[in-house]
């Protein structure tokens, strides 16, 4: 292979040389461009069919009535009206917001606190980092089904522990007051490892002189965290906040596997409702309309994310 390529390339160069520098440059450029698109063609085909085309199609589907027999027809805002008239629509948005808020309260603050504590420890670091990241590696469906068993009101682990502590058991997934919280607990358990490790890496960049200076000025432990650690890791904190909002607003696996949206729509999320419309009620238009609404909301966060990462790099 080596020799054939070398032999082929050598004469080509010698023939192009007498043609004059300018022509050889332009021909060279064309050949380079062609070969570059040769390298790109696989990606272009994959993106065109499975990324760009679906994006355009999503925008159209929301305004169409689609079935596989006939052609799609334009229906204007009918899909949006139909979806918004669904009694589950309001609760889906409220649940999603509440889930996101609770998930941030646990899943955003907890990894940062954990990382700050871990960064102070001089022993067992490898073990602790390994352990905190272990649930992240489990397939989410496995982790969620495991917690479904823990949440079992009878022999589940959580009620058993409450029983051992002489506390009354909870109905976890079957009660409207605890169902959403139960989803947040699973989600935090299986996701907090990655946040923790990212913060831990970011903490390495905090300049130690600042801690020294703050301490000389008489700043206590919490004040040092507040005035040194947090400002020094501001960028990562902000980026992670945005990414986490974007990720948790799309919650699906937890309600799908744990509660099926119940009890009484207490855990229906926007994406879960989208799934119901598209794949249970056979209304691709309704599902796409919900998707478009969610996209508009999330694009705001994406835009802020872009701004932040651009400014932070300068």
């Amino acid at each position: 292979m080596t020799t054939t390529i070398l032999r082929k390339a050598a004469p080509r160069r010698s023939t192009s040389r007498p043609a004059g520098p300018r022509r050889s440059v332009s021909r060279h450029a064309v050949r380079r461009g062609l070969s570059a698109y040769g390298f790109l063609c696989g990606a272009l085909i994959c993106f065109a069919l499975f990324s760009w085309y679906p994006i355009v199609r999503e925008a159209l589907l929301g305004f169409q009535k689609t079935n596989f027999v006939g052609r799609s027809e334009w229906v204007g805002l009918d899909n949006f009206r139909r979806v918004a008239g669904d009694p589950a629509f309001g609760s889906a948005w409220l649940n999603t917001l509440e889930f996101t808020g609770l998930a941030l309260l646990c899943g955003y603050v907890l990894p940062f606190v954990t990382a700050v504590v871990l960064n102070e420890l001089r022993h067992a670091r490898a073990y602790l980092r390994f352990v905190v990241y272990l649930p992240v590696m489990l397939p989410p469906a496995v982790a969620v089904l495991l917690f479904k068993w823990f949440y079992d009101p009878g022999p589940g682990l959580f009620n058993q522990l409450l029983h051992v502590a002489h506390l009354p058991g909870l109905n976890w997934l079957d009660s409207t007051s605890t169902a959403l919280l139960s989803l947040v607990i699973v989600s935090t358990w299986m996701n907090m490892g990655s946040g923790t490790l990212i913060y831990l890496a970011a903490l390495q960049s905090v300049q130690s002189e600042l801690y020294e200076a703050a301490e000389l000025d008489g700043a206590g432990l919490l004040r040092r965290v507040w005035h040194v650690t947090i400002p020094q890791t501001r960028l990562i904190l902000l980026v992670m906040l945005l990414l986490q909002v974007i990720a948790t607003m799309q919650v699906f696996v937890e309600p799908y596997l744990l509660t099926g949206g119940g009890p009484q729509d207490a855990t229906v999320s926007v994406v879960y409702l989208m799934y119901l419309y598209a794949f249970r009620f056979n209304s691709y238009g309704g599902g796409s309309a919900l998707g478009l609404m969610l996209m508009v909301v999330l694009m705001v966060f994406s835009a802020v994310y872009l701004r932040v990462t651009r400014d932070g790099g300068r």
Partner: protein
Amino acid sequence: MTEPTIGAATTAAGRRHRRGRAASERPRRRSRRGAPGETPAPRTLISARALNTPRGRVIYWIVLIAVIVLFTAVFVFPLYWMVTGAMKSSGELARTPPTLFPRHPHPGVYRDAWRRLYLGRFLLNTLEYAVGAWLLQLAVCVPAAYALSKLRPVLGRAVLGMMLATLMIPSTVLLVPLYLTVRDVPLLHANLLNTPFAIWFPAAANAFGIFLLKRFFDSIPGELLEAAAIDGASSWRILWSIVLPISRPIIAVVSIFAVVGVWKDFVWPLLVLPDSNRMTVSVAISSLSEQTPQNILIAALVIASIPAVAVFLLFQRHIMAGLTAGGLKG
């Protein structure tokens, strides 16, 4: 939307991480032998001086032990409960208070779960999807990133911008149109449902992989490649024998993302592989969970998590390094 926007944050994080690791690795190792804080390590929140006082030492050890106990209880105990729970009989599972160790362990449950739920087939399916998606993604993304980074064709920046723009669209929003696309691929009019291609092709259109690879290729000095070109090497040969060997670390990161991504995915295989012979292990277990006895189901969960844990044990270093490179994924 162009490449420096996301790049800025990720490179900064990566650089910081590297610097941080280099600085902290040595003292940490040394401190393992001696008392805490006696090393000249770059100080963290708490100074070495404070840690070296008798009171500081006592507090340090209390906190350390508390953290170890807490982490073990929160992250390891549920897994222990799962592994031992599978070996309990149905009667023992329903008992209050529960038994910490199975009274009469039945390791045979694992064999039952393997046979009754056809876990071997589903694990093989998942492996097929993951390996195929990984290979196709490398075959598609590596040449594309190389072309965008080094060959810089006309409109290359526009193409890159359009690829990176897809990162801004939340993935779940595209489930419906992507499902319809896979069901009837435009131009080809093929139905990919229940075929591995339904997983492989969408996985190959991975803008984040292209972004990571391109950023790495950008850092390879152009002189190196020009020297090879003057020696008559073709672009393919330069990619194969110069760029790829240098790029092993980033290819490892992209590979891990590809495999772990497919392995952990649930919604997409749920939608496009409805045939019970083609399901992934996650989808299969969840669809069978209702009609399976509790202990068999738990055993199945244990078996399904073994590959992920094994991969983590083997590639821990790469996965954690990749996390900081890719943690800022959009």
